[in-house]
């Protein structure tokens, strides 16, 4: 029997605002517990909600980059339930009149291009975070995240494979991060994804029993969870055990399994109703077009520009536009050092290997672009060679050194004076008589070894072109003499 997996996604994305959705507390990630809390987001009485305009604008930007139909009037509603991470006892969300509906995102997965359709996007506030202390059998609440603005992007059940899900999430991350809507960092929880999954016989029109899986913290975890859960569904269908029920399941990444979250016997009634504390917000054409006009260049347009106007290889353009951060580094460095291909080569060949070796993701790489350009200028002007340049770049990345000062202070300037290099090369030839003999006997490959030895003697500072030429000259002199 062949089966088809059917999935829909609910993606929560934290909006990149300075402050929270309904108060002026900082919305930044990584503060001390309960540092970013005021009476309003702590749910105290007497604190009216004041909508953060920037959050609505980022919501409109999210609607624009997902081709969604923006509502003329949106409003906020209350979703009520008791839980300690929800200080007011209700979450402010959009239930009746969300900011937009009916969008789509085009993805490219194994099967080619595909359009994923979106049911809606709505703005809502995040909840706080519970920290359980098994030692004291108590729970602590951190309200920093309370009321941080989110958009929830709800797709239709258009996904048929984990590859499509991953391609969609990568596309969303690119669209939203380039538009400045969110930094979309899964590891910091600013992009979270719940998967609604069901399995049916291929060709069937009827959907199978659906489960919702939560708590995946990486694309890899999402793919693994989908794989596990779809196999669990197929197993249950084939066994005819009837164990499949509509429920929410938590993914355990260490065990590689999903577990039932043991919902209450009856479904919770959230008692949605329009929030009487907040006026509906009118979104007119003028507002939309001013946001549309100020949207930064999206990744695919950047990609086109890099491959056509700047003449970069597709591979390089793809890597650089794969991360908003990298494309910013590229553009800022290019402003100080106008050689598109060289900057791209150095980012992909050198910078990324330094960054990855330090275990840092492309999105988190931080470097002073003016100093980066300074390194490139030193290499271009032959003040230092490429190998020294790479070491210098590592210093610029890790310690923020000034490239010019550092080179001067440590005497890293390239030695291109043949007169100064010749005695060193002669020493190498004397010390490696056996290798020289091999070379003269016709073995070209030992040449590199001799160059390496010579570089060592100059502490890597020799001009490779000069040293190559000089070495060949000295060797041919020996050859001639021996004849």
């Amino acid at each position, binding site marked *: 029997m062949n089966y088809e997996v059917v999935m829909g996604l609910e993606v929560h994305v934290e909006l990149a605002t300075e402050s929270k959705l309904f108060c002026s507390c900082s919305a930044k990630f990584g503060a001390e517990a309960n540092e970013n809390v005021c009476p309003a987001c702590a749910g105290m009485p*007497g604190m*009216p909600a*004041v909508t953060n305009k920037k959050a609505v604008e980022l919501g409109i930007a999210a609607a624009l980059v997902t081709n969604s139909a923006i509502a003329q009037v949106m409003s906020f509603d209350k979703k009520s339930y008791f839980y300690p991470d929800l*200080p007011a006892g*209700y979450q402010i969300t959009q239930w009746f009149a969300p900011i937009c509906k009916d969008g789509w995102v085009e993805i490219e997965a194994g099967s080619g291009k595909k359009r994923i359709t979106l049911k809606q996007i709505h703005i809502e506030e995040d909840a706080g975070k519970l920290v359980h202390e098994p030692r004291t059998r108590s729970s602590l609440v951190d309200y920093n995240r309370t009321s941080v603005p989110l958009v929830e992007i709800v797709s239709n059940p258009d996904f048929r494979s984990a590859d499509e899900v991953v391609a969609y999430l990568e596309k969303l991350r690119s669209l939203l991060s380039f538009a400045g809507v969110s930094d979309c960092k899964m590891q910091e929880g600013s992009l979270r994804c719940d998967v609604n999954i069901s399995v049916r016989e291929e060709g069937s029109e009827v959907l199978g029993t659906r489960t919702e899986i939560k708590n995946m913290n990486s694309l890899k975890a999402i793919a693994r969870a989908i794989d596990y859960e779809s196999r669990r569904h197929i197993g249950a269908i084939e066994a005819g055990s009837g164990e499949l029920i509509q429920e929410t399941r938590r993914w355990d990444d260490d065990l590689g399994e999903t577990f039932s979250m043991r919902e209450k016997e009856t479904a919770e009634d959230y008692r949605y*109703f329009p929030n009487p504390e907040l006026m509906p917000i009118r979104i007119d054409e003028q507002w939309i077009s001013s946001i549309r006009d100020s949207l930064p260049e999206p990744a695919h347009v950047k990609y086109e520009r890099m491959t056509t106007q700047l003449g970069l290889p597709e591979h390089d353009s793809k890597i650089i536009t794969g991360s908003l951060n990298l494309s910013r580094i590229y553009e800022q460095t290019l402003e100080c050092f106008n050689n598109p291909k060289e900057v791209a080569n150095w980012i992909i060949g050198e910078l990324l290997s330094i960054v990855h070796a330090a275990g840092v993701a492309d999105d988190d790489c931080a470097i002073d672009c003016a100093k980066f350009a300074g390194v490139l200028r030193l290499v271009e002007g032959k003040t230092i060679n490429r190998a020294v340049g790479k070491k210098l770049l590592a210093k610029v990345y890790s310690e923020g050194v000034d490239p010019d000062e550092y080179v001067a202070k440590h005497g890293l300037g390239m030695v291109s004076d043949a007169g100064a290099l010749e005695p060193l090369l002669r020493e190498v030839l004397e010390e490696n008589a056996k290798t020289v003999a091999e070379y003269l006997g016709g073995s070209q490959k030992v040449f590199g070894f001799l160059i390496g030895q010579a570089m060592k003697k100059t502490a890597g500072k020799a001009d490779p072109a000069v040293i190559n030429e000089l070495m060949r000259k000295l060797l041919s002199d020996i050859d001639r003499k021996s004849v």
Partner: protein
Amino acid sequence: MDFDMECFSTGYEGVEPGDGSVALEDSIMHKGRSATAGSRMLEGFISPISATVIARLESAGYRILGKTTMDEFGASGLFPGAGDSPTSGSVVAVEQGLAEFALCNDYSGSVRRSAASHGLFYIHPTYGTVSRYGLIHCVPSMDQIGIVCRAPDGGERVLSIISGNDPNDGAMLPDTGFAAGEGSRGRKPAVVAVARNAMAASADSPAVWDFAERFEAVEFELEHFSLIGAVMQALCCAEISSSLCRYDGVKFGHRAADYKDMRELYTKTRTEAFGVEAKLAALAGAMVLAQENYSKYYDKSMRLRRVIKESLDFEKYDLIALPICSASPEGLLALHSLPQLCGLPSITAPFGNGGVTLIADAGREDVLFAALREALKL
């Protein structure tokens, strides 16, 4: 202090009563002072902030005398048949001359009724014109700080001080300032409309007619008058039930002493600390908002609220005059709900042998004051 403090839940030491002093209902938050909204739930709760109205009054030279008693979250007015609730402390404080005036949130209309029957005036400003920053939430779509005062002129002065936009309240109307004295310059009312069906069975009808006939009096039928009380109860209970969700024993306010898990913490805390009316409102509100009831009760009430508001036609008249007494409890709630349901300004005034409530179009407080000046020969 050597005056009767019964009407105060907290009197401030060393503040001189009398002219220039203000009493605040205990639902208005004053930094560093207790604010209970009349509920055991908030016993010991100290306000972290001061309401915008307090800052405005203090900078105009007024002194805060203390916090007056109130029925729990102002909810008892929603159940007028359920028994007598004590007279609002705000009314007592002004009647006794302790405070020049008092501020309170009279969303259920019970304070204004009691004010007029004690010979005082109650000014209910246009919705969204006085900041609610620091006013404990009860019914956010109707919550509005109003003024209990001895004479309209004093109230008019206070209104001009406390009204006006505040960036800390996200649901205010733009350009909401009210300048005292506009009444004398503003349009004097010519036509006063009396709602025929609201007059039935009211002991105040002679007073209302007497008032209206000092102008050109017209009669009209107030649409859905018999449903207003029910609409009011449904909407207020829904909103209160939501406003009270924050009281769960986790963060502030009362917390039950013993509980074995989270659920018990919630139920014990709320069972212990809410009184009968708060519980009734929370339960009724949760029922109104339940999924299977939403369209039948909440949505229908919202539609009626809109229909009622749209039926009022201030092109045809300048003011609506309503009586303050009714033979039935439901009638009482209906009589004192129209301004809150429609977000309109009103003044409830003692008049003749009874009282009258005057309602004007949004933002036309000037017409209300002008009418009172004319009728009372001030």
